[in-house]
């Protein structure tokens, strides 16, 4: 459906849309108003695939230039992804936090908020989960431990994102920058807590007490894949429902599309902005909770994942659509799993993954920009 070129129809006249907008093909007027970004990356699958092929090719070239054999590299990469059971599980494990972050930022981006603070919200989620799982949970009945720990994480992440939202609504501070700066504050806040208030006195390192067994995320069989993956899938579904099937989602997309127009339609832009950021922060925080309750089981110094920007990249490539984000996140998980394996077996630095992940975004952004230009010029002519 994305390949066809129907005539441009827009709900809000100021902002023209590209002809490839799937929303434009539907007759449901509610679905026409989407943020500019959503249409920006709404490329047909062949384009996305092509961008990844180009960038994987460059990645392979880099590996070869640094002394790896092609056959060996392909073999390792295949084994690290779909070529073995272990590789598949690794891929899903690496996918989980990235997918959650992507889903989280999609909510904010759809509402027109550039939430670049996923990393910080994730850190706060880790703090909240540790607070809930190690300090609060012991005094709760067993079945409540896990839900309470996750809920604590979501509250912490939401509040952190709320700071940026309030700064924007009350003082006009661009959330682009404030969320970026809050990331660094969050990293040092974790350091502050594990060195002081939350430090386990019996440990020879700066880390919190272990979360209790009841607060752990259970794992699938004997694999290292925890139920965070299921939570992530549920989030995909819920966010899709929120954005596409509820009036709140419609209002988010409406302010994302054009805040001024929304004001005329008597939507309280400020309240919606804050709400979108709160939800976004809460979902990003679940990624941090997954790390604390499913992998580390404690808060630990030096915890800085870098998932934040990868999650953003996924959201952009997915054209801000939850379903697509799942697919792209699986691809990113595979890239990261392959890069980690390549480092162990071929000796290539794992940061190769960043090159392979970053390039397609730049390439597709350029293609999308040129497309928008062509549309505008055709419209003028």
């Amino acid at each position, binding site marked *: 459906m994305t390949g066809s070129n129907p005539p441009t129809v827009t709900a809000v006249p100021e902002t023209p849309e590209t002809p490839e907008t799937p929303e434009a093909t539907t007759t449901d007027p509610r679905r026409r108003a989407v943020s500019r970004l959503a249409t920006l990356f709404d490329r047909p699958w062949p384009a996305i695939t092509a961008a990844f092929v180009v960038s994987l090719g460059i990645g392979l070239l880099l590996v070869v230039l640094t002394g790896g054999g092609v056959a060996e590299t392909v073999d390792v990469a295949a084994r690290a992804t779909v070529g073995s059971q272990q590789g598949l599980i690794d891929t899903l494990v690496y996918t989980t936090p990235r997918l959650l972050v992507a889903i989280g930022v999609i909510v904010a981006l759809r509402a027109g908020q550039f939430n670049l603070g996923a990393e910080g919200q994730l850190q706060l989620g880790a703090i909240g989960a540790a607070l809930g799982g190690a300090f609060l949970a012991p005094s709760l009945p067993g079945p409540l431990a896990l839900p309470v720990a996750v809920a604590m994480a979501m509250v912490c992440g939401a509040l952190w994102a709320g700071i940026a939202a309030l700064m924007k609504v009350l003082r006009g501070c661009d959330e682009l920058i404030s969320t970026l700066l809050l990331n660094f504050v969050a990293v040092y806040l974790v350091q502050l807590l594990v060195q002081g208030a939350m430090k386990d006195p019996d440990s020879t390192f700066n880390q919190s007490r272990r979360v209790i067994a009841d607060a752990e995320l259970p794992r699938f069989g004997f694999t290292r894949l925890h139920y965070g993956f299921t939570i992530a899938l549920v989030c995909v579904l819920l966010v899709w429902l929120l954005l596409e099937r509820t009036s709140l989602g419609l209002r988010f997309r409406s302010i994302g599309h054009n805040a001024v127009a929304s004001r005329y339609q008597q939507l309280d832009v400020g309240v919606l902005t804050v709400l979108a950021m709160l939800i976004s922060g809460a979902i990003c925080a679940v990624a941090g909770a997954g790390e604390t309750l499913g992998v580390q089981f404690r808060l630990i110094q030096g915890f800085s994942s870098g998932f934040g920007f990868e999650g953003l990249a996924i959201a952009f490539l997915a054209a801000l659509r939850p379903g697509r984000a799942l697919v792209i996140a699986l691809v990113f998980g595979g890239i990261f799993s392959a890069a980690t394996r390549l480092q162990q077996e071929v000796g290539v630095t794992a940061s190769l*993954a*960043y090159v392979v*992940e*970053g390039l397609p975004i*730049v390439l597709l*952004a350029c*293609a999308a*920009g040129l497309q928008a*230009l062509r549309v505008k010029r055709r419209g003028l002519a």
Partner: protein
Amino acid sequence: MHSLVEAFFWASAVGLAAPILLAALGETFAQRAGVFTIGIEGLMLSGAFAAAAVSVSSGSLVVGFVAAAAITAALGGMYGAAVVLCRADQVVVGIGFNLVVLGATSLLRRQLFPTGMTVPDTSLVDRRAIPLLSDIPWLGRVLFDQNLLVYALYVLTPIAVYVLFRTRTGLLVRAAGDGAEAASAKGIRVLRVRMWVMVLNGTLAGAAGAALVLINSGGVFVDNLVDGRGYLVLALTMFARWHPAWVAVGAVLFGAADALQFVAQASFGGDVPTAVFLMAPYLLALTAWVVMGRRSNAPTDLGRPLLA
């Protein structure tokens, strides 16, 4: 002794401010012309890497510095080609660019410099006191016993103010970011202006990265050396209201927040956790912004590609 009026404290603040100010001058021009460069973090990191790599290989700091500026000028041009000519979304390109640079510099460092990446001799860029001027009490030590970059900035900052507000070039830059479509309709070549500004931004960001590694870090390159300073540059540019003079003031305040780490620990001992000092520059930026509040003189086309 550990007081905030001590000359050395402010001298440190000025020294720490220099690379941030240099990059922020370029970013001020870029944002005035309507280009919001999230990728400045990556541009600075490329400059730092190129400066260290070329200095180590050629044995000359001058060659390293020039090569870094040239390479990042080219990168700035490529970045410009994406966001200006291809009209790609500026934030998206920035995020992708930073990811690529982070990965590529770390990869190249391992492959090209397997035994570490340290420039052996950086004495060329050591502090040099200016005779007579450095003898002025207090002020002399703060301002005139510094490294070459600081002296260069004493010249560059006023030039930036002059060019931006008193020349036709500055007018073109501001027109490209404030009412770009109208400017374009009047025959101003907005795209060309934005491209040149991005080359300038790349050059200055690269030089700032070079200074960061050669001067501030004593020639030692480590992965992710810039570590968020690029984002501080963005924040600084915006809450300084796109005016080079305010940018300079803000940069020195950031430098002071950084230099505070020693003074505060010496005064309060171990009572204040280290993490608080590490947060300080970021908290300062956030606070400054809340205080400054909504800005009315923001370039209206900031972040928007010219679709015409």
